[in-house]
């Protein structure tokens, strides 16, 4: 079983991308679970969302305490939230940041693997202010699944409430996040 933890702020769409990833993985035949962690609900407050992925039905409904992948949608959280908590030495930290991975590792005193993606810049280039979709694409590339087109289909189905322009920008952002990860760093999968 793979477990993923998403860190974001209320309103940044951590829950949305955890569900889109789950839908795409289900489409490809995996058992999945996607759930947010709720506390006092305030826009801008730190929030977490989680995915579980397995090849058999998932019966666990406890908290995810030892994710193998942590995705951070907002680098500002690094100063407030212990994002590496429970992340094993062979786990992977994927961060929306223009900084070099080594720099972040030093700041966090984390010796494990870190990949940074300039999510905010890529999102704006794609026509949206939401970096969550960039990081969703990047996470799929890091995981080695779901396939990009499955993910795009899941996003199209899940974002029908958005305007056509916003949908297209989100899809572009997913694609740019997927492309931003050097394929050599897919070793995680």
């Amino acid at each position, binding site marked *: 079983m793979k477990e993923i933890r998403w860190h974001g702020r209320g309103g940044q769409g951590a829950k949305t991308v955890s*569900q889109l990833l*789950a*839908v795409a993985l*289900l*489409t*490809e*035949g*995996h*058992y*999945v*679970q*996607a*759930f*947010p962690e*709720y506390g006092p609900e305030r826009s801008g407050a730190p929030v977490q969302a989680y995915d579980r992925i397995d090849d058999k039905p*998932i*019966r*666990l*409904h*406890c908290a995810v305490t030892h994710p193998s992948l942590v995705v951070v949608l907002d680098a500002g959280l690094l100063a407030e939230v212990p994002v590496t908590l429970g992340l094993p030495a062979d786990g992977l930290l994927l961060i929306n940041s223009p900084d070099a991975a080594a720099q972040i590792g030093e700041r966090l005193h984390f010796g494990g693997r870190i990949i940074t993606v300039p999510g905010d810049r890529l999102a704006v280039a794609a026509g949206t202010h939401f970096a969550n979709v960039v990081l969703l694409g990047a996470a799929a590339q890091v995981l080695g*699944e*779901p*396939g990009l*087109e*499955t993910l*795009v*289909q899941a996003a199209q189905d899940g974002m029908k409430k958005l305007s056509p322009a916003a949908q297209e920008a989100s899809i572009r952002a997913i694609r740019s996040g997927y492309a931003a990860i050097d394929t050599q760093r897919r070793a995680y999968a």
Partner: protein
Amino acid sequence: MPAEARENPLSARMQLLTGAEAAAHAMRQINPDVVSVYPITPQTPIIQTFAKFVADGEVDTEIINVESEHSAMSAAVGAAQAGARTMTATASQGLALMIEIVYIAASMRLPIVMAVGNRALSGPINIHCDHADSMLARDSGMVQILTENAQEAYDFMVIAPRLAEHPEVMLPVLVGQDGFTITHSAEPVSLLPDEQVRRFVGDYRIPYPLLSGEVVTQGPFAMPDYYFEIKAQQVRAMQAAAQVFDDLSEAYEAYSGRRYQAVEGYRLDDADRALILMGSSAGTAKDVVDQLRAKGEKVGLAQVRLFRPFPAAASSSTVSASSPSPAFSL
């Protein structure tokens, strides 16, 4: 459809839904006559999702927006008396506020189905799960089913109207799902086709409708003699619900392929220690049992799905058959 997703049997039969959405889909397929609603975390997404089905014209249910849970349950009582197939939903303080009307619904033998997103009672105020809210209604005369996951939350919402409306039962039925842990957790759920749910649930006719044209008295004052008589009838109805639960589980299996026991043993054979659990923690515990069994520990689990009427005989045989320890005698 993308190449990776082609001809995948899992996604062909399952869709990603939260427990709350799954319960709302069951309500959509049942198409009850009346649903009285008042929002409360973490139940709100049940009625919110269902209200959207109503607004989109997918069902012709009359939604009654009320000003409190006390009113939600009161409106449900009125609708059910008139002969409407009636549902409501609540959690935590909402069920606490409903409670006096829940007793009345049970004594009037009104088969109202109540979806609950189980949540701790205040105080301190808390939005997360325990079963204190439905246990507050333990002795109300309401049948209670506590589910493990989104699939069960759906399945038992489909089964609930038939259990409630069974001539030997005629009692309100609560279907609980763990707040947030299930209500807000998305997982693969298999829905029956709409027409199969309609066929399974069937039509409902109240035996003693308020609007029949005949003069009837409902919910009257009762002196101790008739009070006792009515309570005795409620006890018999509650006892009958256990057998009806099993019969309906069997009937539902023919539709879904899924068979549920009132109390289910998990790896209890030769177990010398066992957990007894309800709700989502039973699922988590099954993995723990497997892990400990792999290390040679003789452990097991008894999962209680039907909390009222409490299946005491089944629990006792489920647990004590495997364990001589008096700690597990129920």
